[in-house]
Structures are given as structure tokens and as C-alpha cells.
């Protein structure tokens, strides 16, 4: 019988395109990145073996540590607000009906499909120091105009806000799907028992939506650790060190300072941070079904 080996060949034909792409464009670059971390190679070209020197350097590199904390700060500013606000918006959308519901959902969701460059242009214009429309509000409520993306204190929270404006639609969609899976009967029954809105939320919605909340938190956390695009664009021309984050530091070391080996080490550290965080978060969230 040749069936077995024939089956293997047929299967090989099916998986070949993906597997080849995967080996060449994913596995090989990953292995090569790890190899690079032990060298002092420039971006293009070979370098000498330096052992763990790059790793030791990470711990003494103030700029790296700064980028690490900035990334953490950004995660703090985005992950939980984006998740909770997503849930609130989803509940708001969910109680509307018909075309009103579609319109409101569209308002929350449309920004999500925009390219980051467009988001950047829109907010650069709204926040423009001279002519931006938001400066009227700053003038009125804060007392003076602020070049928000150039200002150390303002930049991160504002970029976090822009990120939430841009990406919340994704979370809203997931939460709406989750809310629709909660049976209306439970609300009706609790209303008969005299439960008010808050009690319904606390004892029905929140516990039953928790799996979705956990999923959104996980997706958000991993996503925001990789922050680069909008932050890079919005802070162009300012003092980049104010808002330097990890992916940006990879870019700076490898592409601007031509330190391929050290850049790869920073990249590998990000890789490890994401692996550790996802494993930890999985453990924590799984243990908390409230």
C-alpha cells in the first residue's frame, strides 16, 4: 500500500506555501534575531561575537530603561480605559434600536478602519498650536494653549486618547457580540424582582460579559506594548526622548544609529516581555471568573 506516503505528499502540497513562507519570513528571521543579539553587527553586514555584552548593556542603558517605562506608562493609559470605555459604549449602542443604533455604532467604529497616517493628520490638525480647533477649548478651560504633542506632560496622555479614539470600535464590536449573548429573560426576571440598572449591571452584565472583557484586555495589552506608529508620527519634530517607546528604540538603534546587534537585543527583550506578559495575564484572568 502506498496510500500513507501518498497522503503525506498531498498534504505537503497543501501546506507548502504557508510553511515555506513561515520558515523563510518568520522562523529564520526569529532565529537570526537571537543570533544577532550576541554580535556587534551594524544593520547591514556582519559583526564580531560579543557574548552577553548587549544584554548587560540593556540594564545600564538609561534610554532603554526610559523607553521601557514609557511603554509601561502608555499601556497603563490605554489598556484599561479602552476596555472599560468599550464596554460602556457597547452598552449604550446596545440599548438603541434601528437606524439610530447603526448611526451611533458607525460613529464609534469608523475611525478604526482608518490608516494611522490619516488619524495622525486629523489630530495634528485638531491639536495644531496655532489654528487647531481644540486650542479654543484649552484656552477656555485650561487658560492657555498647549503644543500637546511636544509637551512632556501632555504628549503621552494625548496620544493615548487619540489611540482610544482610533481603536475603540474594535472593542465595542466584541462587547456588543458578547452583550447579545446574554439572555433578555435574565434582565426581565431581575426587573420583576425590582433590580435597578446598577444592580442589573453588577450582577448580570458584568459577570456574564467577563470572558469578553478578559479577551479584550489580553488583546489590548499585547497590542499596546507594541505601540509605535501613531506615537512616532504625532511626535515627529519634537523631542523624541520624551515619548520614546520600545519599538521606537529598536528603530532608533538599528535604523538610525546603525546598531543592528543592539537593536536586535532590544527587539528580543520586547519579544520576551510580550511572552511573559501574555502568560501571566492568561493565568491571572483565567483565575478570576467573578
Amino acid at each position, binding site marked *: 500500500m502506498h496510500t500513507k506516503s501518498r497522503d503525506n505528499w498531498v498534504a505537503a502540497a497543501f501546506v507548502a506555501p504557508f510553511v515555506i513562507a513561515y520558515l523563510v519570513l518568520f522562523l529564520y528571521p526569529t532565529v537570526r534575531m537571537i543570533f544577532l543579539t550576541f554580535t556587534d553587527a551594524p544593520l547591514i553586514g556582519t559583526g564580531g561575537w560579543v557574548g552577553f555584552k548587549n544584554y548587560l548593556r540593556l540594564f545600564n542603558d538609561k534610554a532603554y530603561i526610559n523607553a521601557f517605562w514609557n511603554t509601561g506608562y502608555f499601556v497603563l493609559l490605554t489598556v484599561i480605559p479602552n476596555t472599560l470605555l468599550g464596554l460602556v459604549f457597547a452598552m449604550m449602542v446596545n440599548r438603541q434600536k434601528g437606524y439610530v443604533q447603526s448611526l451611533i455604532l458607525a*460613529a464609534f467604529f*469608523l475611525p478604526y478602519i482608518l490608516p494611522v497616517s490619516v488619524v495622525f493628520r486629523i489630530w495634528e490638525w485638531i491639536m495644531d498650536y496655532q489654528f487647531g480647533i481644540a486650542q479654543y477649548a484649552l484656552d477656555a478651560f485650561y487658560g492657555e494653549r498647549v503644543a500637546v504633542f511636544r509637551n512632556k506632560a501632555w504628549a503621552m496622555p494625548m496620544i493615548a486618547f487619540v489611540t482610544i479614539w482610533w481603536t475603540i470600535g474594535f472593542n465595542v464590536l466584541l462587547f456588543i457580540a458578547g452583550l447579545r449573548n446574554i439572555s433578555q429573560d435574565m434582565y426581565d426576571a431581575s426587573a420583576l424582582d425590582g433590580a435597578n440598572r446598577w444592580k442589573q449591571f453588577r450582577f448580570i452584565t458584568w459577570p456574564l460579559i467577563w470572558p469578553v472583557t478578559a479577551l479584550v484586555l489580553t488583546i489590548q495589552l499585547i497590542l499596546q506594548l507594541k505601540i509605535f506608529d501613531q506615537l512616532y508620527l504625532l511626535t515627529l519634530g519634537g523631542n523624541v526622548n520624551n515619548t520614546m517607546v520600545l519599538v521606537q528604540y529598536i528603530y532608533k538603534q538599528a535604523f538610525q544609529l546603525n546598531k543592528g546587534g543592539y537593536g536586535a537585543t532590544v527587539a528580543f527583550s*520586547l*519579544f520576551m516581555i510580550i511572552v511573559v506578559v501574555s502568560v501571566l495575564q492568561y493565568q491571572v484572568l483565567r483565575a478570576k471568573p467573578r
Partner: protein
Amino acid sequence: MNIVKIDFAGRLITLVTLAIAIVWAFPLYWAIITTLKPEFEVVQPGINLLPKTWTLESYAHVLTTTKIGRWYLNSVVVSVVVTILVVMMGALCGYALSQLRFRGRTVLWFTVLASFMVPIQALIVTHFVLMSQLGLINTWLGIILPQLIVPVVVIVYKQFFDSVPKDFREAARVDGAGEFDIFLRIFLPMNWGVTTALAIITFIGAWNSFLWPFLVSTSEDTMTITVGITQVKDNFGVQYARNLAAAVLAAMPVAIAYLIFQRRVTQAIMLSAGIKG
């Protein structure tokens, strides 16, 4: 009796909802309306929610003085090729994982699942080295290749192929159909919806991707539109309306794709998050 009891709290929530939705959509409105004003009006003090003079001057300027046509072409080619390849590779591999028994199947499946976690951003350094060794910096292929690793497409296809009843496959086998026939004539057509959804979301993702195209295209001629509109500056005069007009043009294809395929986009987002719906 309280038959006419009015739900004040409910009404208040509805009002707040409407207000927030308007605030949320306002930046989009403001950006579009700005592109329809002449530049001198854009920088006038005061808030004018509608242009005093309607004009398409900023669009004309962008279309005639930048390489936006070229960037459009680059973006279309890159996004279409990425979409076709990602969906094709994902469908084939998903089919094998779901329907065929072969050596290394479990290993392959766990590799796909594990790679879910790896941040592609961490690979920019070695991707760049690889592409430069292959001589692909500033080429379409160089922009395309690193965007082809999308394991979630494989995972989604596997899930959907798993739920196709076994009878279809067995009946076809009895009729003497080969695996390729079964894949093309039964499994793929039965899951067109998934394919459409995945294709649209992959297209939008490829069109919107920034970091990699930004790194690999340094010449104005090979930039995609998302990179081009941020990198190339006009060196004279006020240009708020022009910059925004370029942005509106860049967003147009994804906005249109979304408006036409709303349901599919929504479905695809659920799928990519692991919610089968």
C-alpha cells in the same frame, strides 16, 4: 397607577449616548470639511462649521503636485497581492490541518498557534537585513513579503473547515474526487462568506500598515500611500487643507470597502479575535 411613568434615566442615557457619538464623529467631520475650504479660510480665527467658499482646490493641488497616483498604485498592488497570498495560503493550510492526516500535523498546528504571540514588530531588524540581502529594498516584493505571516487566517479556516459535515467529503471521495477537487469544489464554496470576510480585513490591514512599508521604502516612488502622505512635504505656504485632502484620499478605499461590506468587516473582526460568529 404608574402606566405613564416616564423613564427619565433612560432618556438621559440616550441623550448622553447621542452627545458622545457626535463628539466621536466630529474629528472626521472637521477633517473633511477643512479640505473643502480654501487655505486662507482654514487659518482664519473662529470656528466655521461650514466653508464660506466651497472649493476642491486642495484636492486638485494634491493630485497635481504630489506623486499620490504612484502611491495609490503601489498601495493597490501591495494590498491586493498580500490579500490573495495570505488568504490562499491560509485556506490551503487550514484545509490540510482540518481534513488531512499527515506526519507533522500536530507540530504544525501548535507552531501556528504559538506564533500568534510573536510580535512581528520585533522582527523589523532581521526582516530588513533579509530583504536587503535579497535586493528587495524599495520594491513591491520587499513591502509584500514580511506581511504574509498571518497565522490567524489559518486558524479561522481550520475552525470553519472542521465544521463542514463529514458526509460531503466522503461522498466526493466515493465519486473518485481528489483532495484538490474536494477543496476547490466543496470546502471553499461552502465557506465563501469566511473567505470574503478574511479577504476584506486582510486588505484593510495591508492598506493601513505603516511600520514595515515605512522602513522598506525610502524612495518616493515605492512608498505606499499611508507612508507617502506622511513623508513628503510641500515646502511652501499653509497646507492644512492639502495635508488633510491627501489623508482623505488615502482613507477613501478602506472607507468605501467598509461601507459596502460592513457586515463582513464586523464578522471578520470577530473571527480575528477568536469569536466565531
